[in-house]
Structure formats: C-alpha cells, structure tokens
C-alpha cells in the first residue's frame, strides 16, 4: 500500500541477535560474493538510504549489514564487507551496536560521497575493474554525478537485479522476522479495535495502533484509515469523525523486516467478497505463476465496483526488508512468482460505497502459497 514515509524511523532501534545472528549475514554475503565472481566484478557497492538520500527503502543495505541506517557498503572478494556510514564519527559507537560488520568509516555527512569508498577499495587492492552498483539508480542527481567523477578509472555497472534475485527467496530467519513484525502489526490492530469499540474516532484508533506498535518495539509504523473519508487517508491530526466500520491498514517494521495487516471492525456482513478475493489470490500463488494471473484470480470474484477500487489501491507485492518489494501483483505486471518469495496480498474492495479491506501474508512454496501466522 502506498503510504507516507516518516522523516525518521524513530522507534525501537536495536539488533535482535537471537533472531538474526551473525552467521545469517555471513551466509548472505557469501552468496553475494559468489554472484559477484560469476559476473566478473571487482567489487560491489550497495547504497543505503540515509536521511539525505532518496534511495528509499529498497532493503538492500540491511540485507548485508543487518542495520537500517544509511551509507555505502563495499563488498570485495576478500574479507568482510566494509561500510562508509552516513553521518560523522560521533554516530559510529551506536552504529556499531546495530551491525555485525566491524569496519565502519564515517562518511562525514548525511550524504556519503565516493572519496572514502574509493579509499576502502584501494586499501583492499581493488584499484581497477568493474564495480557492481546496487541502489545507485535512486540517488539524487547531484550525488550520482559526484560518484561518477570519483570512480574515474573504474567502470560502474548496475548489479541491482542479481542482488534482488538473491533477496527474493526469503531465508527461514527472514520469514521468522516477518512473522515477528506481523505479531506487532496484529496487536496494533487489536489496540485500534479496542479503542474504536470504546467510542474513539477513526483517527484516535489509528493513534492507538501506533502506540501499541511502538511500545511493542516497532521501529517504523505506517497506517491508513477511513479518516474523514470513505476511502483511505493518512493521519493528519486528530479528528472527531467516527465512521463505521473502522477500516485500518497497518504496516510495521521490526529489525528491518516489514509486515502489514488490515482490520475491518465491526466486521461488515458483506465482508465475504474481499475474503473470497484474498482466498482466490492465495490459491493462485505458486512458483511459476504469473503475478497478473494472481491478480486476475482476485479480481474475478469481485464486483465491478470493488474490482475498480481494489485496482486503484493495489493488490499486493513482495514484502520483507522493503514494504513494497518485487513482485507486483497487478493485472499489468510482467513479474513471475518464484519459490520462497513472501507476498503481501490485499484487497481494498468497495461495499455500499465504503472501502472494505482484507489481507494475507503468504510465502510462495512448491506446495502453493502458505499463509504466515504472527509469531
């Protein structure tokens, strides 16, 4: 679901080592190095979105570091990755607590330039060749121009697709992390339901969902609800407006991993239509299935009006280290589902002129789509 990105992911920020131990990351890096070698690259550079970057939440940076901060990761054939971090040296002690990577160099500002990265490469004897880039396409123009100049003598080559294919198949611990986020999101909707049942406005119910999520260690929280509209809207200040039923979409991030869920309360009598659509998409989701076929399966059981509304809000996408990852579930999508992907499937139908929500998070397996349950 499209939502407003807050300026800072300001909630609980710590590394859950029990959930994501060091060997989880060394295994990932080994896989990246293997692909790097296959592609004949001298090194791979991965951009992570800091405050001043617009690389957004691609999930690439935390996939390697475990941390959700910003900077540039340098992966060379030998040794552990090195990170040039966004920010100054003052931030390094805290950043060290969030990642398994030992070599952290302050980039000196919110925007990390190429010069310190080049120094890392040269210190590691990588003085020429092709550098694979991940996330460079989303950089601001001014930053990218500076990067291109700094890496004069190297060739820059996008490595995004290979890298994201690696990320596509969710590892067991990643699924566990998503289920943990799903628990926080589910509890948040329960808090909203309780608040709404007690007479709160739709906006207040959303705030209570946020309170619950942050208390339960969500780092980031996003929500949309039927606040002063029969569609969905972001929170823009409290409102006394109370609309039944409460329609709430909540997304939560924990240790870098996202999950989202929906709430309709009281449950409308006509809710079966959206549930049937979700069931149809779940049934259609399997390795090799076209994402457009999954979308079509959901749309086929919806009324014309519901289908139009659902298309407008989107039917789902991959989820994990990014809230909106590949594949995109849409009748115009060219994506094909692969084994191990985790999908957020959603239907924002229309009942009596009001938005009606349902959702599921599933993992695509050889036996079909398996619904994930909150942990």
């Amino acid at each position, binding site marked *: 679901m*499209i*939502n*407003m*990105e*807050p*300026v*800072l*992911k*300001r*909630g*609980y*920020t*710590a590394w859950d080592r029990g959930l994501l131990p060091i060997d989880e990351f060394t295994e990932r890096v080994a896989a990246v190095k293997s692909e790097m070698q296959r592609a004949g690259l001298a090194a791979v550079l991965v951009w992570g979105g800091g*405050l*001043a*970057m*617009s690389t*957004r939440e691609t999930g690439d940076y935390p996939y390697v570091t475990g941390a959700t901060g910003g900077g540039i990761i340098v992966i060379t054939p030998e040794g552990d990755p090195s990170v040039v971090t966004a920010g*100054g*040296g*003052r*931030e*390094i*002690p*805290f950043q060290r*607590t969030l990642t398994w990577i030992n070599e952290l160099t*302050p980039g*000196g*500002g*919110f*925007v990390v330039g190429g010069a310190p990265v080049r120094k890392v490469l040269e210190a590691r004897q990588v003085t020429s060749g092709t550098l694979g880039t991940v996330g460079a*396409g*989303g*950089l*601001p*123009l*001014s930053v*990218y121009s500076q990067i291109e100049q700094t890496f004069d003598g190297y060739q820059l080559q996008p490595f995004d697709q290979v890298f994201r294919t690696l990320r596509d198949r969710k590892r067991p611990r990643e699924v566990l992390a998503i289920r943990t986020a799903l628990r926080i999101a589910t509890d948040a909707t329960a808090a909203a339901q309780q608040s709404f049942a007690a007479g709160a406005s739709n906006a*207040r119910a959303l*705030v209570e969902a*946020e*309170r619950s999520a*942050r*208390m339960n*260690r969500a*780092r980031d929280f996003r929500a949309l609800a039927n606040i002063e*509209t029969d*569609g*969905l*809207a*972001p*929170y*823009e*200040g*409290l*409102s006394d407006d109370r609309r039944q039923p409460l329609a709430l979409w909540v997304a939560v991030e924990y240790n870098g991993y996202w999950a989202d869920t929906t709430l309709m309360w009281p449950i409308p009598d006509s809710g079966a239509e959206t549930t049937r659509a979700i069931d149809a998409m779940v049934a259609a989701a399997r390795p090799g299935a076209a994402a457009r076929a999954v979308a079509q399966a959901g749309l086929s059981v919806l009324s014309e009006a519901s289908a139009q509304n659902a298309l*407008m*809000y989107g039917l789902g996408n991959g989820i994990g280290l990014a809230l909106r990852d590949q594949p995109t579930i849409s009748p115009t999508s060219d994506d094909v589902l692969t084994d191990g992907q985790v999908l957020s499937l959603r239907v924002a139908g229309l009942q009596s002129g009001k938005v009606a929500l349902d959702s599921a998070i599933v993992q695509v397996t050889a036996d079909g789509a398996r619904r994930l349950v909150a942990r």
Partner: protein
Amino acid sequence: MTIATTSTNTSLRSQSLERRRAAIREHMRRLGLDLVIAYGSGLHSFIHMNPAWYLSGFKQLGRHMAVLLPSDGDPVAIITPVWDLARARARSTVEDVYATDEENFMTLVNEQIDRRGWRQKRVGVSGGQGHPRVIADAWPSMFDAGVQDVDTIVSDTAKIRDEWSLDCTRRAVAIAEQGYDHLLETARPGMPEHEVAAELDVYMRELGAEDNFQLMSASMHNRGVHAPTKRILEVGDILLGEITPAVEGEYIQICRTAVLGKPSTLQLDKFALLDRCLRDGMRTAVPGTPVREVVAAINRPLDDAGYSQYTRPPYMRTRGHSMSLGSMEPEIAPDRDHVLFENEVFVMHPNQYIPETGYFMCGEPVIITTRGAQNLTSKMGTLDSIG
C-alpha cells in the same frame, strides 16, 4: 488538547501560498523563465527542501508530484497515486490537480506540457536535495531548450518565513514544548528508552504533529544522542531528547537534557556553560551577520573553558540548521558563507560533548530579528530532573 489541525486559518494559508507563487514568478521574470516545475519525491525529510509541497500546500503520499507553475496563467499539480486525488484537491491550493500511477507519472506530465503548449518554453526545475536521478535526467529531454536548476529561487523565497510558515512553526513549537513537559511527567526509572520515546511521539501525534524527527537516548555518560533502544532508565542516567515535530511540513526542534534523579553541581555548571554559549550565539545573530560569526560566538565560552577540541568533528558537526519546508538555509556551520536575514528560522543548538559530564543537548528554535535571535519557545531549556 489538539493544538494543530490540518488547517486553522485557511485564508492565511491560501494567501501565503499565493504570495509564494507570486514571489517565484518574480524570480522567473528576472531569469527569463516561462515555466517552473517544482518536484516532490514524497520523501519528506527534514533536511530536504520540498518544492512541490511548498508551492502547493499539499503533502503527497506517492513517490512523485510536480507543480507546473507558468509565468502567466494557473498552475497545475500532478500527483500520485490516483486514489489520493480527492485529498489532494481538498488540501492543495492549486486548483487544477491530476492524478496517476507512479509508472505513468512522466507520461501525464508530458501530456499536460503538450496540451498547454509548453514544449518550447524556457523552463526551470526545482527538485531539492532529494531529486532522484531517474527523474532529474528526464526533464531536459522534455523541453526543446532543456531546463535549468532553480532550487535557489525556491530556497531564497522560503528561507524568509511568511506568515503561514510562521503560523505552522509556532504551532509545532507549542507541540514540542507540551510534548517535553509530558515526557518529564511520564518518564520514570525502570522504563526502557523506546517506551519513553513512544509515549512522547504518540502524545505529540495526538496534539497534531504530522511527523516527528526524534532521537532519544540515555546514558550516565553520553557520547551523543541516538535512536531509542531497550536500555532501561535508571537513576543517574542523563536522558537526551532531540524533539522535532512538524506541522504542515514545517519542522521545529527543541534539544533537551534531563537527569534521572538530582543533577550534580558539576552537571549544572556544565549545562550553564552551554546555556551561555546559546545565549551568546543568539545575541550575535542579527540580520547581516555571517553564520561563521555566530558559530564563533557559540564556541567562545567553550574555547575559554578549554574545550576547543570538542567544538570540532567528530564531536560537533553544526551549531544549527533550518528545517524549513522550502529551504535548508541557514546552516550555522563554520564552513558556510551564509549571511543571516531577518525572519529566518532555525534551531540553534550548542549540543556538546563535555569530557567531565558527557554529551548535553541545549537548543532552541529561533527567529532572526534586529535584536538578535529570539527563541520561539515559551521558555529556554534547562537541565531538568526526572523522578
């Protein structure tokens, strides 16, 4: 309890927005431009300018938005996603709003340009610091004469706060102060940092903050401030808060320090030193003053006390900065050439590591006047006590 709603004074808001666009048009005439495109990436960072939001009054949800402002005639806004169109039409001060999906954004912009005969016009683009390369690269090919970067004209207009900007700013200041008072009432030994931060954050949301940049952490000897963790607060900890709520895109920041338990004489003395730095900086900051002189005024008491080495990186980056919706000027840093103007607003913060006590936060949102920088808060920060 709510301080700020989405719009408390619609007339002031619409008039100010109209004046902003008129000011940009003045710059356009001076530069010989026929059209300005103000782009928004949807990343509402407090250290990025938001040209599209600044000129339309609309906080976009989607990843793309453009306000097309001709030198003559009505502006047009193009937003994403489609389902946000009703909110955009209700909130934007631009009458003519179109919506599309992310994939079709540039196509729709192209259609509007063709429809209005703007292809051959002289065009400026303001995308701010977060202007994505893929978008920035696309603009020149859309116009016969290419485009020029006009971030400066938006920033120059926005850095001198208009009435609407100041109205939003003052509401945000009130939220920050009430939020901090709430924190002093609710934070207790035994609470983890993240719960203190959550309580404050949600409270400010209830007051009307649409967003908040917030760092909050505690230690008996802080090296800096960071995002909240599971650390349990205990007597003897020093809690730091960088509290930055936003109203209608105007962020303001207060920097606060509170001791769990009773502050020691040493802690009080060192905080008083930072308070003096702040007041000296505020006195110096009159219109026409180079920001370097403000930095020097702030650092002087620290230099005199023998802390010079801690006034430079890695201990210190900047002594203040703007968080305006449309401009990141001024930044109060030693390497900046900026000269202060009346009615600029920014946070001035001699936040500082002191070896005997650790890092303290001490900062106020200020407005530049002929009498120096005036704090926008109802009272200056003190070294507070919790529990």
